[in-house]
């Protein structure tokens, strides 16, 4: 019989992992909310951001002190992500405006291939290490092992959500964004061009991707497989609801915790490695009860 302490420890590690999923899912939600696009390329953006950051760090480290190099690289990567967002808006979203969601979805799959292909053409398939300067030694609190990097990730995720909440609530563009998610026509009447809004949203998603990339990269090394992590964000997404930012956090935590618990306590019974599907089946089970996810808006059909 597992001890309650052990359960707690597993749950906590799940919680922290879950927040990382949230970070990736956040990018999905932002874009889905503002443009109705299911952006499958979010994982590819994570990979791209991490790779660019690694490269930028190398360049700036060669030029000056490490701390400056970190921030310079961060800024440079942000700039690249904004450029990428602008390019996506110009060459993908704009020509496909008014197309059905599935077409846009497919286009983002194409985008995934494009970004991953180009990234790997430039950087190859090797694993880069990414050092955030956070020691990889756990804190031990009352016998509980907590990875510092996990904690850092959690902090980043929560900070990001708060920042976004503030942004949406208190800035003009943020309010416009909310308007867009409700009604494109209404958004137009606010006077902010839709195209600009899309660039902003994709840039924000790029930022989310960057933070996710930093954390995942630091944990696992920057490599092709971190784009696959994005798939883990999908159950979080449907659990939380496609359009809810708080839902992303709650969904992430729920998925992370239950996944870890299931892995540890159920996995061995059925043959192990249930991590690959458990999150999905859980999300599916929730959907059957609440088709719009935990925090999604209820779709009311009018005739």
């Amino acid at each position: 019989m597992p001890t309650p302490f052990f359960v707690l420890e597993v749950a906590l590690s799940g919680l922290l992992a879950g927040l990382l999923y949230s970070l990736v899912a956040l990018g999905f939600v932002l874009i889905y909310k503002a443009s109705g696009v299911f952006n499958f390329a979010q994982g590819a953006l994570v990979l791209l951001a991490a790779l660019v950051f690694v490269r930028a760090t190398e360049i700036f480290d060669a030029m000056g002190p490490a701390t400056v190099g970190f921030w310079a690289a961060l800024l440079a990567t942000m700039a690249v992500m904004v450029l990428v967002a602008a390019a996506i808006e110009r060459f993908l979203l704009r020509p496909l405006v008014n197309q059905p969601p599935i077409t846009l979805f497919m286009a983002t799959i194409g985008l995934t291939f494009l970004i991953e292909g180009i990234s790997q053409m430039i950087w190859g398939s090797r694993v880069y290490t990414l050092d955030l300067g956070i020691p990889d030694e756990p804190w031990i609190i009352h016998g509980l092992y907590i990875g510092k990097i996990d904690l850092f990730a959690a902090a980043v995720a929560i900070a990001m959500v708060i920042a976004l909440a503030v942004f949406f609530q208190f800035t003009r563009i943020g309010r416009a964004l909310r308007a867009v998610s409700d009604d494109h026509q209404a958004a137009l009447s606010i006077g902010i061009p839709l195209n600009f809004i899309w660039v902003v949203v994709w840039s924000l998603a790029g930022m989310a991707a960057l933070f996710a990339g930093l954390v995942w990269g630091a944990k696992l090394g920057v490599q092709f497989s971190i784009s696959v992590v994005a798939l883990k964000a999908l159950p979080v997404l449907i659990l939380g609801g496609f359009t809810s930012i708080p839902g992303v956090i709650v969904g992430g935590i729920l998925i992370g915790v239950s996944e870890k618990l299931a892995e540890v306590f159920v996995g061995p019974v059925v043959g192990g490695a249930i991590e690959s599907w458990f999150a999905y089946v859980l999300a599916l089970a929730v959907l059957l009860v609440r088709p719009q996810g935990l925090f999604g808006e209820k779709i009311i059909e009018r005739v």
Partner: protein
Amino acid sequence: MFYRDSGLIKTTYKADRAIFPVDQDRWAIVALVGLAFLVPAVASEYWLSSILIPFFIFSVAAIGLNILVGYAGLLSLGTGGFMAVGAFAAYNFAIRIPELNIIVVLILAGLVSAGVGIIFGLPSLRIKGFYLAVATLASQFFIEWLFVRVPWFTNYSTSGVISAPAVQIFGYDMSGAAQRYLIVLAMTVAVAVTAKNMVRSAIGRSWMAIRDMDVAAEIIGVRPLRTKLVAFAVSSFYCGLAGAMWVFFYIGTVEPQAFDLNRSFQILFMVIIGGLGTIVGCFFGAAFVILLPILLDNLFALLGTGGHADLLSHAQMAIYGALIIILLIKEPHGMAKMWQIFRQRMRIWPFPY
């Protein structure tokens, strides 16, 4: 330009609703299929085994998926899973009941896949759109996991990679490339015809009704759950069939990795590029997805950049992605639409479209 259809009048509804109502189209397709059966006489082993056979198998899978996505409007990312079910079912039928005719095995495999499809289709009554798409991922991952982890399915093989038994029909060995090609072709024709028949019949209209406006579909008496489940069943049947053919006529081995998420996406690409809600588009899409890498390979070889296999495959990936985006922008309704426009142009030639 090629059409001389004036004076060919339809005096019955049967003639009017024929799959190819224009006589010349009908002759052309009959000739094409006839030629396809003669291909083994001229084609090399490489062409048969590495291009044409997978082309037809992919076409079958694409038809299966298109029924679900294009006709019934149910976005699925779990095609690979259903193919895997078909593959493993066929394998198990074949080794456990060796006396079964291979055609029977294929059909049984399809039916098992259809059954699994129905189970995973059940949530579709409540779950819609992208929620459903993500939910189908559950089936994809679960099925993949199941075949890796439960040794019964692989007949307790230790390696996880197992060879399919040799194929015989009425005692004739069917393992040669030409034989395999012919049987795959015949199956493909059967799938295409039955699929086309369904989508132009009542069931096809029920699917499209649900797809276009489920509320209106209900008031004309379409039962949503039943209709969606039939779509899942038919779709999974075809996908399972494709998976079984994959094992017996293409690769010759059974491995779950062949039916991973990337496979699902690959098939989805075929459907989208070929054209949602068309049968002919599935063939275009399959040809595009299969031929493009080969084409790019040859192109790179021509440019003398051979050797950097890694770089090559990445460049291919990028070009592939870009082409998909370009195609979607140029013709969101896929290659089938382009084909239709081309035919229309030819019909009204020399007038502009």
